[in-house]
């Protein structure tokens, strides 16, 4: 059994896989302010869900924003983990768009699964999950209600500012003018999609395109981004754990390399 743990800015994900690379169990918990504690909780939860024994764990790899702050046998970056998982699950994928709590990134891989190029958002929060969190707070809806409301929208508003702080005042202004919440939400999704489209355009889109990261769970946003790039993306069943899954695959490959060297 191998563990991949992705200590992200807003959620910590633990994925356990078996010798064949199949997912046995996984768990997602909020990261809070203590990555160590969050990673312990995520692992415990993943183990207990399927009555797994920690003693069967052969190797673990940590990734994500907090990877240096948690306990694991080694670390790897999100870029490589996501690429590895994408290649394993969908070998025809050439472009991955990952939108997480604090970063968004686009990754290009070749037919062997090697990363040929990648790009990440600058230090600004626009175009990330954080942007949606801030906005849903202002609008007064829960983050997981955004998607359903998006599909009720008939004429999305135009959010012109790319800055979270300025976009916030735009939203407040739309609210005070009596615009419908669903139209504001669809407008926000379009704004992030525009931002990510620009980011990813610098390295280009090649088919197939895979969406990953927590924000890819928001179907409304996925619709906005698909429309913007004009390609229907592949959407994993649970996009939020792809990076942790890649870390688990890395853990497995570390052990097999070690065994080869041993022989």
């Amino acid at each position, binding site marked *: 059994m191998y563990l991949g743990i992705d200590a992200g800015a807003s959620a910590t994900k633990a994925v356990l896989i078996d010798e064949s690379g199949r997912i046995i169990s996984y768990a997602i918990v909020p990261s809070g302010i203590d990555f160590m504690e969050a990673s312990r909780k995520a692992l415990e939860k993943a183990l207990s869900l399927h009555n797994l024994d920690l003693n069967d764990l052969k190797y673990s790899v940590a990734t994500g*924003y907090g990877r240096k702050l948690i306990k694991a046998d080694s*670390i*790897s*970056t*999100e*870029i*490589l983990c996501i690429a590895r998982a994408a290649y394993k699950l969908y070998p025809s994928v050439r472009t991955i768009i990952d939108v997480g709590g604090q*970063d968004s990134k686009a990754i290009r891989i070749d037919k062997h699964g*090697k*990363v*040929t*190029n*990648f*790009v*990440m958002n*600058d*230090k600004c929060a626009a175009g990330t999950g954080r942007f949606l969190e801030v906005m849903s707070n202002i609008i007064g809806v829960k983050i997981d209600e955004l998607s359903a409301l998006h599909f009720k929208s008939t004429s999305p508003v135009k959010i012109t500012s790319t800055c979270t702080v300025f976009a916030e005042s735009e939203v407040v202004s739309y609210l005070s003018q009596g615009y419908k919440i669903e139209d504001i939400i669809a407008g926000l999704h379009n704004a992030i999609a525009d931002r990510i489209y620009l980011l990813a355009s*610098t390295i280009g889109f090649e088919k197939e395109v895979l969406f990953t990261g927590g924000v890819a769970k928001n179907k409304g946003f996925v619709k906005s981004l698909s429309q913007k790039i004009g390609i229907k993306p592949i959407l994993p069943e649970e996009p939020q754990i792809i990076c942790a899954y890649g870390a688990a695959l890395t853990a497995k490959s570390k052990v097999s390399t070690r065994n080869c060297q041993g022989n």
Partner: protein
Amino acid sequence: MKSQKRSSILRTTKKIGDLIMEYFTKAWDRKNEGKPIAWVTVFTPIELLYALDITPVAPEHFAAMCSARGLILDFLEKAEKNGYSQTLCSYSRCGLGYALSGAAGFMPPPDLLLTFRNSCDVYVKWWQSLAMHLKAPLFIGEAPYVLSEEDLDGYALDFTVNQLEQLIKFAEEKFKVKFDMENLVKRVELSDIASELWLKILNLRRVKPCPLGGRDSASDIFPLVVLQGTDDAVNFYRELLAEVNEKVRKHEGIIENERFRLAFDGIWIWHAFDMIKYFEERGAVFVYEPYSEAWAYRLDKSKPLESIARKILAMGLNIDIDLRIKNFMDRIKKYDVDGAIIFSNRSCKTWSAPQIVTAEILNKELNVPYLIIEADMADPRQYAKAQIENRIDAFLETLEER
């Protein structure tokens, strides 16, 4: 990723701090003797100023130094409090903040404000604002934009030589100095020797392992910027070349176990030398930067004014983007670069604008991966350390996987 390897800087590089202090002390001595001080932008004819017995100091160099030493925030905030926007170039905010703080630190107050319109969009308005705050006379030189190598001769050259002649006339009238051609020839010769030495040093970075790293080249450039035409610059580069040669003879790299050879496109991020160290500790060494070549220009002492004019014209940001990119790609091959770090600079759009094109060519034509880092060269408030290190990790990991 293996980390924490030995990383160091050269013995000679460590002397730069003292050389800078000596240079500013001399400038104040000259000021106190009643000799004129010129505040210059960094692509102006400083050999000519030395020949006219005018001492140049450069607010851009001063800003870089303040940023590297953690002293810049007071000046940035002073400018901002006086209404200069945070979106303005940080060098200009530092220079204006220094002027508004009384100009009483390292740089003596100016008797002349000299700039050339040859590289930067901000220079003219910045210098006009300085002239307003400091009540000093202003000289703005013009230089035509260079579209092809041929432009370095012909009308553009004649025009720029004429600008230099006007500057001489202006200085002679203003400061009652006498232009001495013999002195200029000597300055041009010294400047040429320093450039030749520096180019030899840079060329030795092609050697594997690379004997001189990014923290060295970033510091060692300074004599070329403000001391061109002096013995001090020549002596410094002689010593540096000797040390680099010695390292080459001993097959000694500036870092232990060189794994990746990198290029850096942009002005250095002066407040983040730790970032260069972060690369070095992970086995990645900087072997080439266009910035390091920017001030190295061979001059012909038999044609002193023409040579200086040509140097002003050929400055990297005054030449056509295609030429700039071509030069960069040539060096990528020559220095056997594994990856490029492209610094998209909040302050310097003239430099940053064509970077996406550069990146695309690097990736598609040369199959050299790149990483774009966004920050500001001098303003430390625009730097997100954790995120930048995250990207560096990912980049080095992808280089490793190739």
